[in-house]
């Protein structure tokens, strides 16, 4: 019997703090993507989650003192979580970290370290509260853990809803208040009402009264939005926020924006007045002022992306990533009578179709133009097809793309399977057109070319070169993939289009040496040479020798922007000050650096406290082997997230929207795991081993079945209505997640039976493993694919059977 037996469990406060901590993690990612850049945000927040590991180590060493005053310790940690979640972010954004100076300035890594140490503080307090409850109520810990998981499941949906309703910084206040509310609930649950409750109310009021100048986002001065706002008379006229991004609409009446990337040097017309739309303070796209006069859009005929309109009449066009509508206008300019425009972000679409409809000339209400809200790939899958042109818009900014910021982002538009699907939806003789930024040496352009070759071959084309055209200006390249062979007449049109605009030919069937590299001269014609090599017999050797990774991405490894090769790194770093810094593929390095730091910190957080703990309690005989505790909880921490992350990807295309995928998959896993955890508590101590065997067997069996058949099954059901797809997803995840919820509380319960003082250590190991797992899953997926991530996770689950903590024999 423990002091806690018979006491009411504080499950509401546990669930709320867990929900808030998960929501806080998602919110931090949002906030740092806005004030910094996505890839460094990823590193900061991943490592900040080590706060969970620190908490376990802290509890291992101080559990005696803290448990003696459980209520005070528990409530204090809850309150500190609430306060620090706001305070630490506000402090962290004052740290002058500048991602772009990392290669130059030795102080930057120190600033980075300070940032994630500061951000780890709230997670430390949240983990302390949950960890303390797990130890204190160890006889009923499966229910505490269930509350933790159920709360997190709720939090994963709540934060997405919250981010649609309020601005990110307002969401921060809400989460701070939620943290304090969790403490208040704890006060009620533990029956400690009195001074503590009043103190918490005061804290909440103080949080609401923070000076407005503290509650502002300090965006990096080097982000496009900030740079633009420095221009005279430029002002932000609207902001829209959602989990998909913070959209800032900018008006610059005195000095117009004139955004026209890829415009021919021969162009004599300039863009019409434009409103700038920045996503997360960067990645400018525009809404063109359009009053029905197509001549004001003449500049759109001077882009590389205008090529397909000159090769054949386009009656029916599909624009993927319509955004501000520039590509839709380009289609209208070229007399396309029917345009399907697909946009993922409803807020962006509303800016054009509603808020600035007059400015945009009611573009999305124009006869022949149909706006579709949704994920582009899924739209294509469900469409009837027969398009004369499918155009994938150039959505990412050059600097973000060139510095490797997207290396960690999955992209399902540029995979071999995606291009294959697009081709299948073209009319006979129709074109797929994809425009990319020119980077030197070539990366995206050639990788896309290689992907198109694979897609054509996969659809049975024996000579893909006959169906491909690649042109380039000084800023952009456009790849055309035709559903059919390119005709002599089209080649003639191609030549005259390029000659009139000083664009270079990089590939067309029958291209001759000397025909390329004429207007935009490179010392070596990497684009043409690359295209020729990729179509030739030496393709594999070319891909092997090329200093960047040009292997086509697939749905299983959807990392189109992963160009990094290790053997290039040293050379690039040596050339750092001689212009080579720009060749560093930062995203991948950030991932590896995150993993290395997480592993080192985890080793310290796992080994150091147990060493101190054992020195202190030498007289106590060890009842459970430490290696088993490490092995068991490490394997569980790794495998749980491996499966969760891989399944988000598996369901992404099925659920037709990344947010649905995250919300449905994450909450299903957490909620059903929570139920599994609660159910595992009903087992007698003797039957725990047997229950684990059943749970793990079911996980491996179900996981294997899903691994082999899920893609096929989901493919057949993809046309079902939205609600049906959500319910099917949750139903498929439910049994797997239910079983996955059991091993952790079963292991903790075994520790509670034989070595209760090691429960916080298990908590630390699990916390560290979760951080490593998230990073490692991405790394594995980049190199081996998500199917491998699932297979590895199942193998790790199976291994837990061998290391289930058992008492040492006397």
């Amino acid at each position, binding site marked *: 019997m423990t002091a806690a037996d018979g006491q009411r469990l504080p499950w509401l406060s546990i669930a709320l703090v867990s929900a808030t901590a998960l929501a806080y993690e998602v919110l931090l990612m949002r906030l740092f993507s806005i004030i910094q850049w996505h890839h460094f945000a990823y590193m900061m927040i991943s490592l900040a989650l080590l706060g969970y590991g620190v908490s376990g180590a802290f509890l291992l060493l101080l559990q005696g003192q803290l448990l003696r005053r459980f209520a005070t310790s528990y409530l204090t940690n809850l309150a500190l979580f609430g306060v620090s979640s706001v305070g630490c972010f506000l402090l962290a954004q004052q740290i002058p970290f500048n991602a772009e100076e990392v290669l130059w300035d030795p102080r930057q890594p120190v600033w980075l370290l300070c940032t994630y140490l500061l951000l780890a503080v709230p997670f430390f307090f949240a983990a302390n509260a949950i960890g303390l409850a797990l130890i204190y109520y160890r006889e009923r810990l499966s229910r505490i853990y269930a509350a933790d998981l159920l709360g997190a499941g709720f939090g994963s949906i709540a934060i997405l809803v919250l981010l649609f309703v309020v601005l990110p910084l307002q969401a921060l206040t809400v989460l701070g208040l939620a943290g304090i509310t969790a403490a208040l609930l704890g006060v009620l649950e533990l029956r400690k009402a009195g001074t503590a409750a009043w103190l918490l109310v005061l804290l909440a009021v103080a949080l609401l009264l923070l000076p407005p100048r503290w509650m502002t986002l300090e965006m990096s*001065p080097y982000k496009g939005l900030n740079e633009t706002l420095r221009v005279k008379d430029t002002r932000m006229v609207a902001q829209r926020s959602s989990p998909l991004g913070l959209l800032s609409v900018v008006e610059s009446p005195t000095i117009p924006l004139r955004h026209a990337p890829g415009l021919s040097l021969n162009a004599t017309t300039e863009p019409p007045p434009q409103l700038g739309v920045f996503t997360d303070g960067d990645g400018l796209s525009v809404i063109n002022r359009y009053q029905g006069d197509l001549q004001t859009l003449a500049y759109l005929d001077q882009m590389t992306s205008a090529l397909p309109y000159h090769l054949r009449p386009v009656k029916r066009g599909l624009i993927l990533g319509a955004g501000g509508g520039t590509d839709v206008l380009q289609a209208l300019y070229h007399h396309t009578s029917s345009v399907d425009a697909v946009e993922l972000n409803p807020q962006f679409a509303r800016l054009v179709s509603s808020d600035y409809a007059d400015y945009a000339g009611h573009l999305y209400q124009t006869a022949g133009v149909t706006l579709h809200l949704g994920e582009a790939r899924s739209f294509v899958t469900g469409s009837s097809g027969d398009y004369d042109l499918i155009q994938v818009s150039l959505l990412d900014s050059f600097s973000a793309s060139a*510095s490797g910021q997207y290396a960690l982002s999955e992209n399902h538009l540029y995979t071999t399977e995606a291009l294959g699907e697009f081709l299948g939806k073209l009319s006979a003789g129709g074109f797929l057109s994809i425009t990319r930024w020119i980077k030197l040496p070539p990366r995206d352009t050639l990788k896309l070319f290689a992907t198109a070759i694979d897609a054509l071959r996969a659809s049975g084309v024996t000579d893909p070169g006959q169906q491909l055209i690649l042109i380039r200006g000084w800023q952009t390249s456009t790849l055309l993939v035709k559903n059919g062979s390119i005709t002599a007449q089209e080649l003639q049109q191609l030549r005259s289009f390029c000659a009139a605009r000083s664009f270079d030919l990089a590939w067309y069937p029958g291209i001759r040496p000397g025909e390329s590299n004429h207007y935009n*001269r490179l010392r070596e014609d990497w684009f043409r040479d690359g295209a020729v090599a990729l179509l030739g017999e030496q393709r594999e050797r070319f891909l092997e020798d090329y200093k960047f990774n040009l292997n086509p991405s697939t749905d299983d490894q959807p990392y189109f922007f992963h160009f990094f090769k290790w053997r290039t790194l040293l050379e690039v770093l040596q050339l750092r000050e001689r212009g080579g810094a*720009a060749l560093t593929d930062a995203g991948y390095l950030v991932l590896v650096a995150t993993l290395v730091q997480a592993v080192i910190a985890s080793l310290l957080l796992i080994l150091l406290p147990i060493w101190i703990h054992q020195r202190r309690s030498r007289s106590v005989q060890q009842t459970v082997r430490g290696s088993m505790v490490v092995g068991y909880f490490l394997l569980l921490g790794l495998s749980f997230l491996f499966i969760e992350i891989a399944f988000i990807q598996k369901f992404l295309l099925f659920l037709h929207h990344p947010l649905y995928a995250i919300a449905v998959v994450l909450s299903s896993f957490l909620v059903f795991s929570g139920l599994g955890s609660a159910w595992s508590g009903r087992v007698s101590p003797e039957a725990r081993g047997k229950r684990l065997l059943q749970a793990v067997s079911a996980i491996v069996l179900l996981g294997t079945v899903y691994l082999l058949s899920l893609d096929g099954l989901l493919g057949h059901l993809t046309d079902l209505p939205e609600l049906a797809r959500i319910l099917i997803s949750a139903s498929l995840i439910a049994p797997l997640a239910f079983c996955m919820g059991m091993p952790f509380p079963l292991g903790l319960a075994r520790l509670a039976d034989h070595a209760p003082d090691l429960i916080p250590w298990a908590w630390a190991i699990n916390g560290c493993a979760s951080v490593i797992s998230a990073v490692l899953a991405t790394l594995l997926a980049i190199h081996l694919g998500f199917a491998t991530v699932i297979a590895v996770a199942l193998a790790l689950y199976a291994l837990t059977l061998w290391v289930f903590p058992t008492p040492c024999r006397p």
Partner: protein
Amino acid sequence: MLYRHPLLQGCILLLLSLSSALADDGYTQARQQLIQEITQDVQDTSLYLDKETLDPRVMAAMAKVPRHEFVPAGQRDHAYENRPLPIGYGQTISQPYIVALMSDLIKPQPGDRVLELGTGSGYQAAILAELVAQVYSIEIIEELGKEAGERLARLGYDNVTLRIGDGYYGWEEHAPFDAIVVTAAASHVPPPLVAQLKPGGRMVIPVGSRFLTQQLVLVEKQADGQLLTRQILPVKFVPLTGEHN
């Protein structure tokens, strides 16, 4: 070319150091060190620049212009490191190596009239002022423009004329220009700028972010008005070796 001869290069460097030593501002040694670094970098990158060395006049200007005067007080210790530095207002002073390359690419002649878009700290304008007859510079950010104007005047660069405002339409009153240097990010080359470039003139544009120059684009206007660009990777880096065609 005679100026590529190593002996002559040595003499030029010696002369540069002597002339700089005469006007020692406490940074002479650091500046010389920087010049040597740039010289070495250019030799290493010669494959892509099509030359072993930069124009000696450009190097002389680089050796003369006090970069520490163009950076904020807190950055002075780093003024002669071969890297970009923040100058406030979300702007940077470019990496000296890139400034030298850009100045060289426009082939500056003493009688030239050059337009610069994006004055920034004024450092590039000062280098150009050492090389050509007249520099016209346009800065879009008011505060930066005022500071740069005062700085250039204080340092005696009276052949730089500065204007705060929109650079898209160039500077019609002083057109045509022998060369145009675009130091600010550009989504495209403004058609009016192309029109204000003399036949035979050159325009250079860096592509990349504030701190990382990905490539330099050189626009050359032929005698017949035709436009050609050269895209220059400012680094000795071959993505591929061998024959794969």
